[in-house]
């Protein structure tokens, strides 16, 4: 049996192959597509999801965004984990 993925700072998140994160040219919006589900991420979530490419850890994603928005890194990472954990539980995200 598979196990629940629990995200930590060092986790390297990736969008699995059966989930599509893309910009729909006709609708002019970003969408996360999974079986029978479509989610419309907000601008912050879009930025985070763009970085879920299987190359960098949540820690690094958080540091990047903390620099960009001049916000405390711990708080940013906490928010990212909360958001991504919810996506992982729905099957929208896995670890690399």
């Amino acid at each position, binding site marked *: 049996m598979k*196990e*629940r993925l629990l995200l930590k700072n060092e986790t390297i998140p990736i969008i699995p192959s059966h989930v599509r994160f893309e910009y729909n040219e*006709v609708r002019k919006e970003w969408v996360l*597509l999974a*079986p*029978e589900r*479509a989610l419309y991420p907000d601008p912050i979530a879009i930025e985070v999801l763009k970085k879920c490419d299987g190359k960098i850890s949540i820690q690094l994603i958080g540091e990047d965004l903390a620099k960009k928005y001049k916000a405390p890194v711990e708080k940013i990472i906490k928010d990212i984990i909360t958001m991504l954990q919810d996506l*992982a539980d729905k*099957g929208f995200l896995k670890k690399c």
Partner: protein
Amino acid sequence: MLKELKAPLAILAELSHRCPLSCAYCSNPIELVEKNKELDTNDWLRVIDEAADLGVHQIHFSGGEPTVRKDLEQMVEHAHKRKLYTNLITSAVLLTRERLEKLKKLGLEHVQVSFQDSERENANHIGNFKGGHEKKLEVAKWVRELGMPLTINAVMHRQNLQNLGNMIKMSVDLDADRLEVANVQYYGWALKNRAAFMPTKDQLESSMEIVEKARKDLKGILVIDYVLPDYYAKRPKSCMGGWGRQFLNISPEGKVLPCHAAETIKSFKFDNVKDKSLSWIWENSEPFNKFRGTDWMPSPCKTCDRREIDWGGCRCQALALTGDVGAVDPTCEFSPLHEKIFGSATEESSHEAPEFIYRLPSNQEVEPVKK
């Protein structure tokens, strides 16, 4: 292009009404579309183009049984090329591993397999198809071996709700990503068998407990979708996410419907993809506009704070249970008929379940198969 109206998110492409199973709860219309009236390959490919041009995200290939169409491969390939997310909703009994593999290569992204029960004998009795359950298990395994995400669709009712826990376990064992627990909807053929399927209130209460516990225990392992059966609900379901709001359904002969049961509304004339473009139909078709939004709503829906959550519930159900397609969905506790509906469900489920009336491709009723 559409201006104020948003394009549909998904289309349900009912490729054919033909199906090797004859589930007594089949929600397809009593009058099935015959093979020679089905849309041809070019029609479907054009519809796929029109859907992509509209900005549709997902296409669900369904039926009947969509794999009876030999041109399914062409449709999947084309939909994938046009960047639609492709989903196959299948009974699985006709699939070979080679065909599944080919469909995957052509761009199939998700497979949903229906199961009639977790118990072989009862499953095959409900679907009236010998060997069906065994084949489904096999196909579900292939789906995962080929690395595709798997949804198990379990239609639950009085005669299998006792196995809900096993159904959840089966889904985990099959390494499914998602389990859709669908309570029987009494449209089309299913209405003939309502008394055989209507669950008891006790069954429902225990099934909700089972689902809630499993959701907690299986968080991050299995997503479970579960909707309370209408007849026991206090508020109506937001049918199709609102009439003409997010989905459209294309029947095997090309009629464009707001939901797959909409043809039960005989007063409507539905436009056909052979005559009009999908975009024109979505925007202008009379049946779509009739119950779109909130302006059409009767009181008390019109002022209800859930009017943009429930969107007035289900029109087909309102018609079937009240005779008035524009009436308050009687599954809502604010409908004057709510008590009566609840009473009829309790009453029906208190008697011994009658034998099934199976549907056959010929539309003729047949003697039930004894267990």
